[in-house]
């Protein structure tokens, strides 16, 4: 006897996903640290075993602070972070202030696109890293698909920072987020979920960046002479 639609759905619940439903990812997640964002991310946080593509028009918008809670969580559980081809030198004093333990950061400086991809692949394959963050200005669809397939079998978070213009290219990453600054408000970031598992979400999410207090406090800083011996 043929099964009815509801029977089929009940039986293959794990394998059928309805377009209007929320993507209930079975993969373990790590909270992003931002309630508003967690609420909209499938599974309720950054998903392991998947690529997360973060598109940004330019560096210096707060992209590290966006990831800082997850990275802090990672290093607290003694897991390593791999940075593949960051655009600038990470300034560890700032990272440490965000709670990220700099001892667990490994940076790879490669410049050729093929080497970046190789480094990312090796990082994802290796069991050594809890998080892999790569800067990938150009990547073919095949390369993205390969990275996503590799990520499926790795229990780590994989973030790819890509230029905002890449939003028009198709991508195998199941989660794509466009970052943009909030005008006139330097302590917030607005996020457009371009793609996620589950129902589309069109409105931007506005999240306050951590350490806003530090910035507002520093605005009141008087010119001070820091003695060189302290």
């Amino acid at each position: 006897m043929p099964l009815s639609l509801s029977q089929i759905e009940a039986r293959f619940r794990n394998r059928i996903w309805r377009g209007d439903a929320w993507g209930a990812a079975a993969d373990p997640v790590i909270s992003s640290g931002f309630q508003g964002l967690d609420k909209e991310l499938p599974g309720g946080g950054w998903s392991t075993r998947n690529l997360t593509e973060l598109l940004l028009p330019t560096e210096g918008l707060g992209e590290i602070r966006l990831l800082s809670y997850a990275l802090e969580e990672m290093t607290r559980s003694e897991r390593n972070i791999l940075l593949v081809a960051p655009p600038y030198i990470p300034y560890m004093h700032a990272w440490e202030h965000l709670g990220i333990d700099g001892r667990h950061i490994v940076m790879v400086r490669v410049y050729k696109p093929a080497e970046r991809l190789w480094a990312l692949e090796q990082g994802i394959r290796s069991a050594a890293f809890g998080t892999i963050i790569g800067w990938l200005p150009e990547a073919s669809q095949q390369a993205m698909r390969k990275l996503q397939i590799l990520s499926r079998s790795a229990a780590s978070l994989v973030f790819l920072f890509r230029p905002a213009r890449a939003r028009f290219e198709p991508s195998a990453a199941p989660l794509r987020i466009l970052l943009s600054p909030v005008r006139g408000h330097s302590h917030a970031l607005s996020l457009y979920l371009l793609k996620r598992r589950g129902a589309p979400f069109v409105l931007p999410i506005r999240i306050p960046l951590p350490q806003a207090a530090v910035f507002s406090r520093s605005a009141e800083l008087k010119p001070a002479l820091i003695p060189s011996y302290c």
Partner: protein
Amino acid sequence: MLWIALYFPALSLDWVERRFPEALIPAIGVTVRKGNQICIQQANKPAQARGVMEGQPLASALAVFPDLVIMEQDSHEEGKALQQAVYAALRFTPNIAIQNSGLIAEVSGSLKLFGGLKKLCQSLNRVVTAQGLQLSAGIAPTATGAWLLARSASSGTVINGKGEEFRILLDALPVGFLESAQPHLEVIRGIGCKTLADLQRLPRSGVARRFGQNLPAELDRAYGDAPDPQKWFEAPEDFQQKMKMMGLIENAGLLLVPAQRMVEQMCGWLALRHAAVSAFSFVLHHEYSLRQPHKFTSINIHLSEQSSDPAHLMLLLREHLERTKIVAPVCELELTADEIAAGADGNLELFPTMQSETTSLNRFIEKFSSRLGPEAITGLKVVSDHRPEYSQRLELSGRGALNRFSKRGRNSQIIPPESPRPAWLMEIPLELKVQRGRPVYESPLKLLAGPERIEAGWWNDDAIARDYFIAENDQGQLLWIYREHNPVEKDKGNKDGNWYLQGLFG
């Protein structure tokens, strides 16, 4: 006791053949002297295809195929090939005895570790076959029994004589396999004895009187009725293997197969010593001539963490080999275990733990630096200095990475969080243009906070005196900029220094 015997039926051919790169193997015949005639003892497939047959006199073989490559049988070289096979097999059991043209391994202690008899036998065969030797194998509760079964198996097969099967299999073996029966074969066959069972049925005292004590003794050892002590192979103190290549090799890719074999041998030797290697060297010896002065190229590999895993060692060697320029044709390879450390690899863990994560980090670093150079992968260390350029250090990985990456202490001397620091630093500060008194980066900048004076470094020549500001541009970038503050120049009327961009708040 459980024994696996490996018999190499084509040993005298294999040791010649395996020194050629696989694609370049010519037609080879190995000759042996029989009385005053030289005969072909073994011929490889290309030679057989051209009509050369085993047992043929050399003269007629050359008449059939004049370009035949002829090698005289060399028991010394065969012994070396056997020894190398034993090295490779040592990974699976320390108890190995060398036989005339094969080896016998006692494996009862290794069954559990290597996943049962079937798996162990497969791995053992694979590893020894990878040494370039054809083999047949026999499994039995006695050493001599296993050896007889291996000899009777056809090439590439295994006869499993475990348990009940053993005596039945042994009974059916022809008498000709028994070593002590060799001088008396004709007589034994003449009295109608074909198999071991037939021989067993004869009165023992009569057999001993006619054919010597050795024959019944060998039978007893085979059936397990008498003890059968073996002389275990003893590994030398140091590991150094050389392999002469036939022909000159100019392509690094062709060296991979022999290199792999040598690495496997080293890992077997390491397993016997319960050790792991922390540095090894691979030397390519070049054909010497007056025209080319290079005698050898040495590849020295230092591991950040000791290892005895052939796959990992081979990976490192391959990456190094790919980056090595072969300046002249290679005629001999040499592998030496330079530094040995006690203890093998970590446990085989089901779930990743701290230990395995550290190990895989070290392996990642090694793999990476051997492919892209050690400067491509770094850690970052916080240094107590107020000058941003000096306040952290890129730490090269490479040797001793384990210590630096996992054991170094967290630096508590970081700058207090009251002064915000950007997540990104420029490699060198970028001088900014100024429009109407305001610094410009993409657009005129709005100063949000500051100044913060950093004045340091007067104790060495790189003194700085800067006023730092946090600024924002129209794109929403948060920037860390500074203006040089120079009291000396101030006096001269040049009030404001230049603006520089040093970092971005990521």
